[in-house]
C-alpha cells in the first residue's frame, strides 16, 4: 500500500470538500425531522386511547426492529411504485429521520416517565392546566436526561449518512467511492472520508457536551 500525496491534494480533496455540505445538510435535516416526528410518535404512544397508543407502539417497534438500510431501500424503490417520486437526498433524509424519530420517541418517553408522579399531582392540586403542566413542570424536568441522548443521536445520524451512498446521494462516501472506481485507488479517498467523519464527530461531541452542561446547569441547580 502506498500513499500518494499528490493524488490526495490534487484529486481527492478538491472533490471531497465540495460534498461536505451535503453530508452536513443530510445530518441536520434528518435530525430535525427525527426530533419533531419523534415527539409526535411519543405523544401517540402515551395516549390514553388504546386504539392510538398500541398501533403507535407497534410502529415504533417495527421501525426500531428493522435495519435502516432496508428501510432506505424500501422508501427508495417502493415510494415511486405508489406514485411518489422524491429526489434521492430527500428520500434519504426521510428514511434516516423516520428511523431516528422512533428512537427519539423512546428517549422522550423515558425522560418524561422519569419525572416523579408527585410532580403531576402537585400541578393538578395547584389547578394548572394541561398546557402549563407540560410546559412549565414536566418538560423542563425531563430535558436533562433527554438532551444528552439526543446529542448522541445527532452524532449517530451523522455516521449513518454514508448509507445514503446506496441511494446515489452525492455525499462524502459516495464521492470517495466514485473517485476510487475512477482511478482504481481507494486508499486516499476512503481514508480521507473516514478522517472527515472522525473530525466532525469529535467537533460535534464537544458541542453536544457544551449544550448538555448548559441545560443541566440552567434547569437543575
Amino acid at each position, binding site marked *: 500500500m502506498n500513499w500518494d500525496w499528490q493524488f490526495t491534494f490534487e484529486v481527492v480533496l478538491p472533490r471531497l470538500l465540495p460534498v461536505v455540505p451535503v453530508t452536513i445538510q443530510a445530518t441536520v435535516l434528518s435530525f430535525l425531522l427525527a426530533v419533531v416526528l419523534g415527539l409526535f410518535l411519543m405523544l401517540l404512544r402515551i395516549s390514553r386511547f388504546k386504539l392510538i397508543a398500541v398501533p403507535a407502539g407497534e410502529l415504533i417497534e417495527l421501525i426500531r426492529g428493522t435495519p435502516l438500510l432496508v428501510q432506505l431501500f424500501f422508501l427508495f424503490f417502493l415510494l415511486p411504485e405508489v406514485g411518489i417520486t422524491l429526489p434521492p437526498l430527500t428520500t434519504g433524509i426521510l428514511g434516516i429521520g423516520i428511523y431516528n424519530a422512533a428512537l427519539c420517541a423512546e428517549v422522550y418517553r423515558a425522560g418524561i416517565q422519569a419525572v*416523579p408522579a*408527585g*410532580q403531576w*399531582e*402537585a400541578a*393538578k*392540586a*395547584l*389547578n*394548572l*392546566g394541561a398546557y*402549563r403542566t407540560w410546559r*412549565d*413542570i414536566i418538560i*423542563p*424536568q425531563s430535558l436533562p436526561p433527554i438532551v444528552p441522548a439526543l446529542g448522541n443521536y445527532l452524532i449517530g445520524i451523522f455516521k449513518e449518512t454514508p448509507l445514503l451512498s446506496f441511494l446515489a446521494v452525492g455525499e462524502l462516501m459516495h464521492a470517495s467511492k466514485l473517485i476510487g472506481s475512477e482511478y482504481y485507488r481507494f486508499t486516499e479517498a476512503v481514508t480521507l472520508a473516514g478522517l472527515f467523519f472522525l473530525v466532525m464527530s469529535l467537533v460535534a461531541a464537544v458541542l453536544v457536551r457544551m449544550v448538555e452542561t448548559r441545560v443541566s446547569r440552567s*434547569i*437543575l*441547580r
Partner: protein
Amino acid sequence: MTEPRIKFENVCKRYGPLTVLDGLNMEVAAGELVTIIGPSGSGKTTVLRVLMTLETIEEGLITIDGEPFNKMRSREGGLVPASTAHLRRIRARIGMVFQNFNLFPHMTALGNCIEAPIHSLGLSKAEAVGRAEELLDMVGLSDKRDHYPSQLSGGQQQRVAIARALAMRPEILLFDEPTSALDPEMVDEVLQVIRQLATEHSYTMLLVTHQMGFAREVSGRVCFFDGGKFLEEGPPREFFASPRHERTRQFLNKVLAAH
C-alpha cells in the same frame, strides 16, 4: 341548617380486588380542623387524594357546600360525571400539602409560589410576587425566596409547600402526613406553621398525621380510619382518653407506647 363544607356519602374506592374506601361517610363543617389517624397503609391518604381529585371513586358522592364534586348536575337535574371545567372550578377551592413536598425542583421558592397564581388564577406577576412574599414571610422563609428546593432543608421545603398551597387562596386545606418525611428536629417548625393556620385563620382543614400529641392539641375532631371507613370519631380529649372501639384502643396503645 347549612350544608357541611365537605361531605362524603357512601364513597367507595377500589384498586382491583382491594377496597380502600368502603362506603365512607364524613361531614366536615366550614372552619373545622379534622385529624384523620389510623394504621399505615390503611388508606387514610386516599381520603385526601379523592378530595383533591387525584383519584377517582367508583361509587358515592362527594359534595363541597352541597355542590356535587365528582359528579355535576346536568341540565335535566340528574347527576352526570363531572367535566374537566367543573373539576377545575371545585379544585380551585382546595389546596394540598404532600408528604414528600412535591416542590418543583427547577423553580425557586418564590417561583414555586407564583407559578399557579399567575397561570391558574391569572394574577399579574407583581400581584403574585407580592402575595408569595407575604406567605413566605408568614412561614418564616422570606430570606430563602431565591433558593431552590435542593438548597433547603426538609422542614423549609415543606414550609414552602404550605406557602405554595396558600398562594392559591383555597378554602379547604389538605395535609397528607406533612411531617412524616422530615427529620425529627424539623417536625416542630412545620407543625408550628400548621398550628398558626389553625388558630389565626378560618381554613377548613383535613390533616392526616401520626403526630398524636399535635392531633390532640389542634384538632376540633379526631377520626380513626381503618378498613376503608371511619370506625370512631370525637373531640380529641374524649377520643384519646376513652376510645370506645377495640381497634382504636389497640392502635392508640401501640402508637403511644412507641413514643
